């Protein structure tokens, strides 16, 4: 019992600490590719610290939904993060069907954000919420299909079981079904984290925003919670990809050397995946809003093919 609590605590700390670093790394890399120097690697930590100490402006029209949402976003992200193997092949939490719970915890956070966007009555919030719902309604099925592909391989929807199965067959990710599922999940990752070509996380143009439009009214500690929650969500989606498909360096169990090796490998794999994300973001313009569904349809098709091919090969 004590041990389980310690494992959960360790993973919690790692989630909180690593998530802003990944955001900082991606921003830095993007800046370098744009021939800019960019903010320091640790700028997201400074931003969070700054926001946490600031006062808040809460719209007069906002209801309890507005104040509850930051906690929902932050807590669902942490809870989902604890269910994904991070530095070992085990996860500290395994609730209600594993990976399915992860998908729906993220869905809950998104649902609350969309409600909060509508709640303030600002026209930008409404635009953002309607766009976010359109996109997530299409991204979610694609994500489910890709996840079922790996779950079938492991005969379980528990993430720990999936990762252990993957550890057992190191080069399994080269199988056609796994590669298709990886591609589908990568597209979902881009859509879910609001990155180019789906959304532009760095824009100041309210009319073009999706995710940012919903949270425009937030400030101070609430904004910090949402930003931090968003960074954790990005991290856990990336962990889902790298640990299910490239399980190198992960050991079953929680031995100290195993955890350290796992952490080193995790950081390396995160860096590699970040590079892929940044390359996509840098070489593409944002899509026309009405063409985003086409991209997600591609993700869905890839997921469906992946699932079908698990039965063929």
């Amino acid at each position, binding site marked *: 019992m004590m041990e389980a609590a310690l494992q959960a605590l360790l993973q919690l700390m790692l989630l909180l600490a690593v998530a802003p670093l990944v955001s900082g790394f991606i921003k830095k890399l*993007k800046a370098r*590719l*744009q*021939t*800019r120097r960019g903010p320091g690697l640790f700028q997201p930590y400074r931003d969070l610290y700054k926001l946490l100490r600031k006062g808040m402006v809460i719209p007069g029209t906002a209801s309890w939904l507005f104040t509850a949402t930051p906690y929902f976003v932050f807590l669902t992200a942490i809870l989902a993060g604890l269910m994904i193997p991070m530095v070992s092949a085990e996860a500290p939490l395994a609730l209600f069907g594993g990976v399915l719970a992860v998908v729906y915890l993220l869905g809950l956070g998104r649902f609350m954000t969309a409600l909060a966007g509508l709640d303030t009555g600002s*026209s*930008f919030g*409404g*635009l953002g919420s*309607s766009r976010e719902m359109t996109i997530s309604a299409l991204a979610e099925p694609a994500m489910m299909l890709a996840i079922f592909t790996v779950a079938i391989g492991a005969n379980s929807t528990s993430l720990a079981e999936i990762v252990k199965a993957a550890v057992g067959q190191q080069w399994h990710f080269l199988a056609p079904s796994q590669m298709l599922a990886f591609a589908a999940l990568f597209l979902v990752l881009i859509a879910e984290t609001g990155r*180019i*070509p789906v959304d*532009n996380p*760095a*824009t*100041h*143009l*309210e*009319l*073009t925003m999706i995710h940012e439009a919903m949270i425009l009214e937030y400030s101070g500690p609430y904004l910090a919670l949402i930003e931090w929650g968003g960074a954790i969500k990005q991290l856990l989606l990336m962990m889902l990809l790298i640990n299910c498909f490239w399980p190198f360096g992960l050991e079953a169990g929680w031995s100290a050397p195993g955890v350290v090796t796992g952490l080193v490998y995790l950081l390396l794999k995160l860096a590699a995946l970040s590079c892929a994300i940044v390359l996509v973001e*840098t*070489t*593409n*313009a*944002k*899509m*026309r*809003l*009405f*063409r985003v569904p086409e991209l997600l349809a591609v993700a869905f098709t890839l997921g469906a093919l992946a699932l079908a091919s698990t039965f063929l090969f």
Partner: protein
Amino acid sequence: MMAVCQNLLDNFPGRMRLLESRSANEIYASLDTADLQEVTRSLLTQHGARLVTVFAEDRVNVEGAFYNYYVFERRGDPAYLILRAAIAPEQPRFPSLAVELPGVNWQEREIQDWFGLEAAGHPNPRRVALHDNWPDVHPLRKDFALHQVLPPFEGEQHEYRPTLGEGVFQVPVGPVHAGIIEPGHFNFAVAGEPILYLQLRMFYTHKGTEKLFEHLPIHRAVFLAESISGDSSFSHGTAFCQAIERAADIEVPFRARVMRTILLELERIYNHVADIGAIATDVGFVVANAHAGSLRESVVTLNEELTGSRLLRGCVCVGGVRRDWTRRQRETLETTLGLVEHGFGELVALVKSSDSTRDRLQRTGYLHPDKAKALGIVGVGGRASGVDLDARRDHPYAAYDCLDFRVPVYTDGDVLHRMQVRIDEVRESIGMIRAALAHLPDGPHRAPAQDIPAGRCALGVVEGWRGEIIHWVRTAPGNRLERCKIKDPSVNNWPALVEAVEDNIIADFPVINKSFNLSYSGTDR
């Protein structure tokens, strides 16, 4: 244009009268307000003329009347025809042309607000230049003192056209925007994402610039002209100086004219390059903006090297330019120009290599050539929609008559082609600067200072990087001005934005807006 004027005089015998003209390029004639609509119609349809601008002047104290001026031009004719209609102060009313010429909609309403002359028959005679909560004052009348302090404004809010229908929403944006831009209110009616219509409200930065001109000595008014629109400092300054030079018959030395040409084109290059980058940013292709930003930086650094000001301020003066260039400055210009040309080639290749950028820009913000013509659109936006106007070619000034250049015109009218016009123009500009520099003549860089005679009227026209900039002045005793009318191209072009965004989705508005990149300050004055 003289023949056209003669034809009008014959058709309206006794009702039109030729006035004294100081320059062959400005023909003044007076007419009765009652004939205004008929004369305009005849000019537009029979003679293929274009109404350039409309403005008013308060001459009640001197000549007992207000004057309205209507400036016309014809393709292939460097002369302007300026019709003057007297309006009696007892009957402050003139017939509106806005029904047939939507392009004068705002300009006629400016006259209503600033002079208290009613545009009879105007389809939308509400306030435009002074907001609804202003008291009933007319600041450009001579009896309105410059430093008059008005009580705090109270009164009606502006009423927008209502957004009705199920699922139709109103999205108000501004007047305060994110980012470093000026204020303006955009009121969208949207059905989901598609825009049904857009209503604009400008003049949040109205500063009474035209009034201020009447209270400054001319040598200081040049600086005021430079600050009308910050990114067109040199164009506005030059347009103003050209008007004064024409009024005072000042012969600008050829060397100064060539130097002005070079600086005007440098202003065009740095703005066009920045716009190309900004259009790329608005569709999320930020890498192109990084390249455009560094390219713009090298041009404005060159500006500083040549004039001491990154944005070319304090350089133009009545009679020429303030300082001559040394050999070293000319060499810097030549070397930097080579680097800019190379860098620009790379920027264009980068933007064109991105299919996803092209996909966002093509067919976005389409402005039909017929609409562009009807609204009297000028400049980059006009040339992308088939409006073949360029004051550099049509009314040559500075040294443009000695230069060979192409005016790019497209009829596709979308964001992609507004960008293409900019790309073509930068290339032409680089060629023009190179040719001008190779033939930079020796001689003085400014005419000797002289007193400006009073009571003279003249136009100054410059094709700024946005489009046609017009200054009209009437001089006063003591090197001062009686009146200075400023027309920035943005005044004509804002309504085009309204047309261009229709049927587009609201997420594409920023890039459509950026492709016109109009000046708020130049509009509001």
